[in-house]
């Protein structure tokens, strides 16, 4: 039997206030297992404000700082600056924010933190809508999905716009490490957390975080749904280190997206054409990742007489070299 790689230590307590099957709760649990107790987490207004339970209790075995919804990036810059000033260099400084708090109202603050080269980990748990306020659309809501502000009624068929590509935005800032994570793949999840923990500089996680009430599916399907998301190319798992992309869950053949879509009420209205469109997007996303991975790691080329030797890779974009805050 393979050795378990998931640390035993629990730094998220039972008795938290998440719904059954809550993806963001799983994400936090695995994250803290990977980071350990010398961690402080800054959390903006989101479902996690509530999941962490009301005063005078807490669901976390580490320090938690609540912050305004739009300010998580700045908050972790401040925590890092204080930790460095106070000689707490070993403190893991983490921002843990929803897709709304990150890709919408908190995007400026995230960009600032990345650009400043803050030595901290920013985690965006993506449940693809504003769940805390009752399932309104965010820029991370997938195209066509039902939410309370993108209804399916008459001519209206859910969200018109495609999902915002947060990873592309983040990668444009050249962080030292960025990765996609999915709690349905706990070993991959924890390995990435441990890797990020050892890096200095700005780090970013885009975490798949299923939400049974918001996505309209049964709470015992969270893990299964997460697997489908990755196997169908909806949420591929990869990491980008110093600018080099590596796929961490390889699939020979993508599963059809239909099963993933059918399982959730928010896509129930999809026509076969709409399913087909998602299928094509998943294919294109996967092909693009494969191509980017190949570009980052070109096979050794035998020198052909008369041709210049294979060009050297451009130097990796080094967040390491950036100023720290």
């Amino acid at each position, binding site marked *: 039997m393979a050795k378990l790689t998931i640390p035993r230590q629990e730094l998220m307590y039972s008795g938290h206030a998440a719904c059954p099957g809550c993806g963001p709760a799983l994400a936090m649990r695995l994250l803290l297992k990977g980071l350990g*107790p*010398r*961690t*402080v987490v*800054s959390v903006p207004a989101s479902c996690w*404000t*509530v999941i*962490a339970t*009301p*005063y*005078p209790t*807490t669901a*976390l*075995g*580490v*320090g*938690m*700082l*609540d*912050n*305004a919804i*739009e*300010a998580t*990036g*700045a*908050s*972790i*810059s*401040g*925590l890092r*600056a*204080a*930790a*460095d*000033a*106070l000689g*707490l260099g*070993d*403190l893991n400084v983490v921002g843990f924010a929803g897709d709304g708090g990150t890709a919408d109202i908190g995007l*400026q*603050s995230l*960009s*600032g933190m990345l*650009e*400043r080269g803050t030595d901290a980990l920013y985690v965006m748990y993506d449940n693809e809508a504003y769940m805390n306020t009752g399932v309104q659309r965010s820029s991370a809501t997938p195209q066509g999905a039902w939410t309370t502000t993108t209804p399916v009624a008459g001519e209206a068929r859910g969200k018109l716009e495609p999902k915002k590509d947060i990873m592309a935005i983040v990668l444009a800032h050249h962080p030292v490490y960025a990765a996609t994570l999915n709690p349905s793949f706990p070993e991959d999840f924890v390995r990435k957390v441990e890797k990020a923990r050892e890096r200095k500089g700005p780090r970013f996680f885009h975490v798949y975080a299923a939400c049974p009430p918001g996505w309209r599916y049964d709470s015992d399907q969270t893990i299964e749904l997460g697997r489908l998301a990755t196997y169908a190319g909806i949420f591929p798992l990869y990491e980008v280190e110093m600018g080099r992309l590596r796929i961490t869950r390889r699939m020979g053949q993508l599963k059809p997206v239909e099963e993933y879509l059918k399982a959730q009420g928010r896509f129930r209205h999809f026509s076969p054409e709409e399913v087909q469109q998602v299928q094509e997007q998943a294919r294109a996303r996967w092909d693009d990742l494969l191509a980017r991975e190949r570009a980052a790691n070109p096979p050794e080329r035998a020198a052909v007489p008369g041709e210049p030797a294979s060009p050297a890779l451009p130097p990796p974009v080094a967040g390491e070299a950036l100023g720290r*805050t």
Partner: protein
Amino acid sequence: MVFKVLSGNGAQAEAARLARVQVIAAYPITPQTTIVEALAEMVASGELKAQYVKVESEHSALQVCLSASALGARTYSATSSQGLLLMHELLHWASGQRTPMVLGVVNRAVAPPWNIGADHADTMSQRDTGWIQFYPESNQEVLDTVLTAYRLVEDPEIRLPAMVTEDAFYLSHTFEPVDVPDPETVDRFLPPKDARAILRPGVVSRLGSFTGPDHYVGFRHQVAEAMDRVLPKLQEVESEYARRIGRVLGGPLVGYRTEDADAVLLTLGTTSTTARGVVDDLRSSGRKVGMAKLRVFRPFPVEAVRQLARTVGRIGVLDRSFTFGALGPAASEVRSALYGIPSPPSVTSFLSGIGGRDVGPQDLRRVFEALLVSEAPGPRWMDLETSGEVAAHG
């Protein structure tokens, strides 16, 4: 002790250096910029050992200071006008999370139309955010107030944030000799911040949290009680400052020739100096007038104002901003402070110096003359009564 020729902004930066702030975060805005530039120089040269976080907005500046203070660091930021308004939500967070910090604010008019002149609309509109507010009148007082503010806000019985303001240009860009205490003396007055913060590595804790109505009111009440402790604590801190550094700051309301006065004018910031001169002039021609500088606007020194009112028939309040639909903000406070006292004085609201209008001795003479003949409540927009002259002066 050395005299340095400093602007108000220079005094802010010197004070932050002397306070040995550990985390600085700021975003530039006229007329605050020379503060953050001076601090950048100090940090770059190694003169000040601090983490200087160059943020992308004032909003982030305040959040950086807030989070850093939550972890136990001494922080400093400075802003003005629009920048302060952008911080609004986080101003509430800072007082609610009980993160002590000092924020320099150069008082500047609020747009539209754009105007960078001295005006108190920026800080006055933040008076309900749970911040202590100081309104110094000189660069010396700016430096002294920043230092005392740190000692005050970090006191375990207070743990609230404070703004130390300066009138745009009249202080921020005007140079005068400032007596700068030596660092060792300041260290004895202001020891390093006690880093026993709620948020600590390896400690299970939560700062902020959420609550139902059962606990929420308790948290608000604690902020209110801390505010109530500010003025008595300030008295202790200022005595200690006088003992160690040798300068008396005078508490929240500093009266001048108020004894036996028929009329007293309350001022904020730089108009205080001018008012003092006018009081002397009028006194020498037999008019019984006085003035009192409102150094602290939050918490409002209700007792001190009542004390003053006992011996005075007429009070004028000179505000450098207006609360639409009401009066000058200080005038409203004075009125409410005097409600219910036996035979209260009349209170007249005067507005002067809006958007950087110069408030000269002749303007204040006009204010005193109006005050001596009338008990009309106002508001009187003195700037409008002199607009012809200003236009003529170009």
